[in-house]
């Protein structure tokens, strides 16, 4: 630890309590994380009334405290990540060694891990929607080597939402939840470098927000980053310098596609896209909660959905040709807990039954 410029950081009960809290909660919005810090301090004060916490019980105090936690956890290749996703700042306990999904969701069976991976792939390759409908998500079971019952897939999806690996919108569309964005960003950037976009403002992974639509420009922005630029006196696109007051950006994420996409059926995928009914603009009104503040003109929506239809069919053929298993790269060398089961005689029975299709390489 001395190497990191923290010569004498020693863990106190306050650190231990907070680390245990992080282990059980994994991902918290910042307001909850601050409240947990306050409660951790109270717990210590209750047993040691003369305890004086080193940091204030507010946002900046928590930030400093979390830095200490990260230093303490470095030894075991974990750290705390703090970053804005959607409307909130999130605090997430991350593994540095785990670039891949398998290491995180350790109680999932190999089949379940493959299912999650497949759903993630469907989400990423649905660009610019960056989300899949419920039916589409469930349909991913068809890609698996062993069968997964529909009801099992439904349970699993809702568990993944609760564990914050996936988010489900009011429209019933699945996208990546903040925890997944913060914990899996390396994996996503490496595995899907052709799909994922980085925000031009903050350089972080972005799956929901807006894209500049001036000429050939394709600069992507998180909604909160875009709003920040728009708040400046002369808002300009970081890439093409276009005046953002003049340009209507296009939506990225769920807002990029109309509601008729939400009732996806497998047949629909093959059929020619039905011509658009009116009312897409209406639909987009309720979508603002997912953070795309961009209100699109109706004709723009039409133009946009057409181009999106093209890019979708493009990405579909791409996903067939190269986004299949062979394209997925293996993660870094890690301690992969899913190999543990092999030794275990009293583990979940279904662990053995499903052949491990996740062994890639």
């Amino acid at each position, binding site marked *: 630890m001395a190497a990191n410029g923290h010569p004498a950081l020693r863990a106190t009960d306050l650190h231990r309590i907070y680390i245990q809290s992080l282990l059980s909660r994994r991902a918290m919005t910042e307001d909850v994380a601050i409240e947990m810090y306050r409660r951790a301090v109270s717990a210590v004060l209750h047993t040691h009334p003369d305890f004086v916490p080193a940091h204030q019980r507010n946002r900046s105090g928590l930030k400093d405290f979390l830095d200490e936690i990260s230093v303490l956890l470095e030894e075991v290749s974990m750290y705390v990540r703090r970053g804005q996703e959607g409307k909130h700042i999130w605090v997430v306990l991350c593994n540095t060694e785990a670039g891949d999904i398998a290491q995180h969701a350790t109680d999932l069976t190999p089949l379940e891990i493959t299912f999650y991976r497949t759903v993630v792939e469907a989400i990423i390759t649905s660009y610019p929607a960056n989300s899949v409908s419920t039916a589409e998500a469930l349909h991913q079971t068809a890609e698996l080597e062993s069968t997964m019952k529909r009801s099992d897939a439904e349970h699993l999806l809702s568990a993944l939402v609760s564990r914050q690996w996936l988010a489900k919108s009011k429209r019933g569309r699945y996208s990546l939840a903040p925890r997944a964005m913060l914990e899996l960003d390396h994996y996503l950037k490496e595995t899907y470098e052709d799909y994922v976009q980085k925000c031009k403002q903050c350089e972080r992974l972005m799956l929901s927000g807006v894209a500049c639509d001036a000429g050939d420009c394709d600069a992507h922005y998180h909604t909160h980053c875009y709003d920040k630029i728009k708040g400046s006196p002369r808002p300009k696109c970081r890439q093409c310098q276009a005046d953002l007051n003049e340009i209507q950006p296009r939506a990225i994420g769920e807002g990029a596609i109309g509601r008729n996409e939400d009732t996806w059926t497998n047949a629909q995928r093959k059929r020619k896209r039905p011509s658009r009914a009116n009312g897409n603009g209406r639909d987009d009104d309720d979508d603002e909660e997912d953070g795309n503040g961009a209100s699109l003109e109706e004709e723009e929506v039409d133009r946009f959905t057409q181009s999106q239809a093209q890019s979708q069919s493009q990405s579909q053929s791409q996903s067939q040709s190269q986004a299949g298993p062979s394209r997925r790269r293996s993660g870094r060398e890690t301690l992969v807990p899913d190999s543990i089961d092999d030794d*275990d005689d009293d583990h979940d029975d279904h662990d053995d039954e499903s052949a491990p299709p996740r062994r890639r390489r």
Partner: protein
Amino acid sequence: MPRRDDDGDSDQEGSGLSRADAKSLAAQVVRLALFHEYRRQPLKREVIVKTVLAQKPRSFDTVFERAQKTLRSTFGMELVELRAKQKGDVAEMAAAAAETQRRKSKGKKRARQGDDEEEDAEEDEEDADASKEKRKAGTKNYILRSTLAPELVAAMATPRPLPFPQGGGDDEEHLAELEKDSGSLIRWEKGDGTPSGAIGMLGVRTVILCLVLCLGRSANDDQLHALLRRLNLTRDTVLPYVSEDGKEEPLTLDKYLDLLTKQHYLEKAKMPNPTAEGHIIEWRWGSREAEFSENAAAAFIERIFINEDESDPEEDVVEEGPDGVQRRITPAEARRKKRRTLRQDLERAAGGALTGQV
């Protein structure tokens, strides 16, 4: 990115490991332990050897000690070896357990952190009796247990609603999340990926463990189910508690008993039937009693039966003495008495002094 070579220190530690190597291997053991605990699955020594120490099986002790050090100092946890599965007569087991307890309290002055050293020391004691010897052979199965003070652990599990954002906030989804959150530092339903992670299931488990304890530490299958039926729980009752993090469907009582056996909360013993052919099934506590002890169970039962803040503390209680004469005592006195009696009843029901830390 892995950053493991920080000390650059190549001191030998006798095991042929440089200090940096030992540190990085120990870190992997720590991670392995955390992953296993999330599944409520004991970590086996052979798993550590195979996954972490492949090239250096003889460095187990060095690496394990180092991992314990990190777990205790950074996480406030430690790996505890599970005892072997119970064999033989229950009364004999209880006597052995009480003996262990007596020895432990002898060395209690030692720091909590020295627990396992203490056990090592015990192992060296020459007068150890035979049944204890057997237990000490060790299962080489470990679970994680908190080393924080019991008051802290209790405070961390206390639910308290989270404050709502000032001005109400406009994000309905977020408000719904806040409302769902128990507000306790440890969110049990998040820290356990198995069906037993649901708070309701934890309640059912505790009740079952208490019943087994009160049935003399060993409950005949029929006996246990007769009692559970009085709680409206039959073998195929679907227990409707599923944590949102859980991926499985609700379990039936029978399936849940099996899961608790797998998770080492219970032990299911087949005993020869003394009166007829075949065998009978007996339920006992599993080795996870290292996590939830008999004394903790007693404290739980006391909390249910004796309400600390019983209404109207002014009013005296009329009690009838053994001589049939009625007299008045203060409520506090009544509670103290009740607790004493309850404790005696529990010990009688269990068939011996209760063991373990609260």
